């Protein structure tokens, strides 16, 4: 079961989806909206997804989990839209014969989900709102990548994050300074 929903997640549905008489263990991870982040008082979170790709990336993750560990079933549900404090934004359930692999696989699924699944989180606090992830990712920007691609000469002087004005070869068009 892989579910994107804008309604509250129903835990029983995930438990039913991983039910297996051969399973001696079910591990459930619940990601909740908490009331603080980086010194800010959080009022709520809002999630936005790229649905088709979120589904295919989730499928890859659960397939990999089943390939790597002797687990039985995996179910994932993720909310989109507003998720208030204390409510679940994501639930992962894993069943297996024994508990060790269920814990490991559940940890893998949530960690990997946060790396690759195209779902974004917007945090609302009293001073405003911010998309989580943007402000912490200022290395490897698109401009730097384009510069590296267009001038892949070893030893070329590095272009700083703030200097994006490099003309792509042959086009005559310049990248605006960031």
């Amino acid at each position, binding site marked *: 079961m892989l579910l994107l929903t804008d309604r509250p997640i129903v835990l029983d549905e995930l438990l039913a989806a991983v039910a297996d008489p051969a399973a001696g263990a079910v591990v459930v991870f619940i990601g909740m909206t908490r009331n603080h982040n980086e010194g800010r008082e959080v009022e709520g979170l809002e999630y936005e997804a*790229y649905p088709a790709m979120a589904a295919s990336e989730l499928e890859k993750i659960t397939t990999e989990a089943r390939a790597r560990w002797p687990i039985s079933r995996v179910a994932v549900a993720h909310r989109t839209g507003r998720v208030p404090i204390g409510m679940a934004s994501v639930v992962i359930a894993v069943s297996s014969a024994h508990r060790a692999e269920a814990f490991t696989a559940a940890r893998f699924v949530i960690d990997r989900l946060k790396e690759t699944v195209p*779902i*974004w989180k917007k945090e609302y606090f009293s001073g405003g709102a911010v998309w989580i992830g943007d402000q912490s990712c200022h290395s490897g*920007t698109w401009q730097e990548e*384009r510069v590296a691609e267009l001038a892949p000469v070893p030893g070329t002087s590095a272009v700083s994050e703030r200097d994006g004005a490099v003309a792509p070869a042959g086009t005559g068009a310049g990248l605006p300074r960031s």
Partner: protein
Amino acid sequence: MTVTVRLFASLRERAGLATITRTLDEGATAGELLDALHLDFPGLSGVGRIAVAVNSEYTDLAHRLRDGDEVALIPPVSGGCG
């Protein structure tokens, strides 16, 4: 050729659009598409590393686009940097 560009989250807010239809020369790369978009939407810079997906598969800026492709610009997802 024509491609459809999907913008999400901070990129969608900065551009003011969720979907952009773009006409490009045959064989244009994802990187060249980003160059062109950035000229029209300078606000797209400053969100950190943008990943690119073509037809729901992650790819790199050297990827050559084809007519009808759906290109998604993916700002950092909630777990950290791409």
